[in-house]
């Protein structure tokens, strides 16, 4: 059956076709739609969960794989850092049922903190990694990955990049589904990691990987095509850019779909007869280093060029144009045309939506701390956008959960400054709780602001432990954030609607005055998961044109028109924040019936 699928959907459908029994993960762009697609197409035979974080997901899947199930774990590349503890040990212990760990990389980066390369993680963990170059290849390759994992009793990594994950393509999808019946857990000493077992397994892995490299040399998606003395080596989406840039030129081209264990035999065949190789890949020079190593090992007189030689850019994503520029210098192919000159364009960075409760929360804290020295530690989610003017309320952002602990470190050094940490509800469950326990135990003096919008907003509104909904469609007990905070010893906890501005400011003032750890939970649903209750318009006769609404809250629905504020009706969510800020009372609300 021919279907038009996004790369992430293709990965999900491929896993379902391969008979996956259990799928878990934590949302993260560009990986999120994989798990969602499995849940959407689940006939009830697959267990699917959004785990509380990537480490939990990896361990849940490991347990199921120990029991013989085929498992899929999904996350973005920085999620793999969180899951690296179980991953490193699991590489030594191994699995029974096939276990595929999807870690989606994000060259650019487009929606990430780092441009880290999962292929390096594979080398570090000594695990096989599959690297698809297109959505349709991802569909076929995920099945190969399951078979490979099971054959060698090892978890395997699968790393698509953003353009594969979020690219859509027409592809042929199988109507049938393989049924995989898990055998169940069989007790054996091999499942308990001990130093002696680790030593033995380490030897086994080092013996196994060159054999895998040899086998992968004939893998269907590792290919060498074309001819000539100047070769090109690549992997992932860059392969498609090269094909496009080459046009009719039949240059010798090697595509590496399994960067680890490196298909040495195939690479040696590719290098034979070449004088030079240009390696075009995204993120780190992984293939480039492998080829340099191989040339050294076999005394080959081939010049390997790429990122390390300065021929290919070190950071950012490749494009057809960037590849054309490289091939212009290398093979004398036509250079890309020069881009036209454009007039000055307005900058349009992403912003908090009109009606977003985070805007009100940030504003309330800002008002409460007016004139006082305060630092605002932020975190990962939509609310990172609170850094933009005019709110300017995010002083730091590092990684999931770090807001709580960064604030503590700062507070120890500058005890006279008030330190706030801002954390979303999903991030709180993922990795905020231990930080709060740390603060209580170590007698820190910080105020925690929990931005509870009842969803995981940035990645597209996934449920989490506080929502009471699971990916199996069940209604479950909601895990209460205030109850957790109280239980771990936070003495001052309040729950406030941030759109009740006066009340919100008072709650922050009270929490800030408390010595020790205090918390304010701002609770109001994300506008994407709720319905507007009203709409506001500006009474231009009353509006003084002071721009306070724009300068204070920066709502994208408000602009100036002929010296008066103007609310764009299609964007206004009726949150009322502008009306509470306006000194003239010019914002008139109409409640929907």
């Amino acid at each position: 059956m021919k279907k038009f699928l996004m790369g992430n959907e293709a990965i999900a459908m491929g896993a379902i076709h391969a008979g996956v029994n259990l799928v878990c993960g934590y949302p993260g762009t560009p990986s999120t739609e994989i798990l969602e697609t499995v849940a959407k197409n689940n006939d009830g035979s697959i267990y699917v969960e959004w785990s509380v974080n990537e480490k939990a997901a990896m361990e849940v899947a490991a347990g199921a794989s120990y029991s013989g199930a085929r498992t899929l774990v999904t996350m973005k590349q920085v999620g793999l850092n969180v899951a690296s503890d179980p991953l490193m040990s699991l590489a030594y212990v191994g699995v029974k049922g096939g276990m595929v760990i999807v870690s989606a990389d994000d060259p650019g980066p487009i929606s990430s903190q780092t441009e880290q390369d999962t292929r390096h993680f594979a080398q570090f963990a000594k695990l096989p990694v599959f690297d698809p170059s297109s959505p349709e290849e991802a569909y076929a390759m995920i099945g190969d990955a399951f078979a490979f994992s099971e054959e060698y009793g090892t978890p395997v990594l699968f790393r698509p990049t953003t353009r594969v994950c979020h690219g859509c393509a027409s592809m042929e999808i199988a109507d049938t589904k393989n049924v995989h019946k898990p055998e169940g857990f069989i007790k054996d000493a091999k499942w308990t990691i001990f130093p002696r077992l680790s030593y033995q397994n380490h030897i086994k892995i080092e013996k196994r990987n060159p054999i895998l490299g040899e086998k992968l040399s004939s893998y269907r998606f590792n290919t060498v095509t074309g001819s000539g003395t100047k070769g090109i080596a690549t992997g992932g989406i860059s392969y498609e850019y090269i094909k496009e840039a080459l046009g009719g030129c039949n240059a010798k081209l090697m595509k590496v779909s399994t960067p680890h264990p490196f298909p040495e035999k195939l690479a040696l065949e590719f290098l034979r007869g070449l004088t030079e190789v240009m390696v075009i890949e995204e993120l780190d020079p992984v293939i480039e280093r492998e080829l340099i190593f191989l040339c050294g090992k076999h005394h080959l007189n081939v010049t390997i060029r790429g990122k390390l030689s300065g021929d290919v850019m070190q950071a950012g994503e490749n494009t057809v144009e960037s590849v054309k520029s490289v091939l212009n210098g290398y093979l004398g192919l036509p250079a890309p045309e020069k881009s036209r000159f454009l007039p000055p364009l307005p900058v349009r960075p992403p912003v908090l939506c009109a009606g977003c409760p985070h805007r009100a929360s940030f504003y309330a804290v800002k008002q409460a701390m007016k004139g006082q020295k305060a630092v605002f530690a932020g975190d990962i989610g939509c609310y990172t956008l609170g850094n933009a003017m005019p709110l300017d309320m995010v002083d730091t952002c590092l990684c999931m959960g770090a807001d709580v602990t960064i604030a503590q470190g700062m507070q120890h050094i500058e005890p006279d400054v008030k330190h706030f940490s801002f954390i979303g509800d999903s991030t709180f469950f993922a990795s905020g709780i231990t930080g709060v326990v740390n603060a209580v135990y170590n007698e820190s003096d910080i105020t925690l602001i929990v931005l509870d919008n009842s969803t995981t907003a940035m990645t597209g509104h996934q449920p989490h432990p506080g929502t009471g909904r699971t990916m199996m469609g069940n209604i479950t007990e909601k895990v209460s954030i205030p109850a957790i905070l109280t239980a771990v010893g936070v003495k001052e906890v309040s729950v406030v609607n941030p759109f009740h501005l006066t009340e919100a400011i008072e709650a922050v003032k009270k929490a800030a005055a408390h010595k020790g750890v205090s918390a304010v939970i701002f609770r109001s649903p994300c506008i994407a998961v709720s319905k507007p209750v009203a709409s506001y318009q500006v009474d231009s006769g009353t509006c003084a044109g002071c721009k306070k609404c724009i300068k204070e809250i920066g709502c994208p629905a408000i602009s100036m028109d002929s010296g008066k504020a103007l609310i764009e009706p299609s964007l206004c969510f009726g949150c009322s924040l502008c009306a509470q800020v306006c000194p003239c009372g010019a914002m008139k609300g109409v409640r929907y019936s």
Partner: protein
Amino acid sequence: MTVNCILSGVGGQGTVLASKLIAQAAMDKGQNARTAETIGMAQRGGCVVSHVRIGDEIHSPMIPKHSADVIIGFEPAEAVRCLPYLKKGGVVVVSRKAIPPVTSSLGNSSYNGSEMIAYLQKEVARLIVVDGEKISKDCSSAKVLNVALLGAACASGILGLSMDELKNAISKRVKPQFIEINSKALEKGALAAKMTVPHHT
């Protein structure tokens, strides 16, 4: 034959659905399609660009510069921002209404939508300006701009798709209760294109 189409706008305007409709219609008539989307942080009111490519000899999901047959701009400045993708003689379909970003309201950058339209009129051989605001009002929905612009692009003939083929795609991809209103917006957009006289060729 290959058709390359760029859809550019502001996060939340519905570019992703519009790109899916084009791809669906092309696939329904046996063609292959590829698209690339902006998903993630940029979706929150930032610039978003969808690439749609129809044809068999296509590798990159992203359209190379100077290769787009048509740019569908959901907003004047976002259409201009994507002009480097337009091929010589390509078509631009653009919604007249500007969406000023918060940065310009704060006075950090100036933005005048009609200046952008004037620039497009000067630079683009085949420009179709759509009064999306009026069509939205006529359809009593702020959410039909994407389909209205598709109607205009379709009527220009550049997509190689018929109105019926797009309507069929709408009926497959849009919730049943919104099919009628979207079909209406598609027609109104097509009408706007037919009333546009080329400025210079």
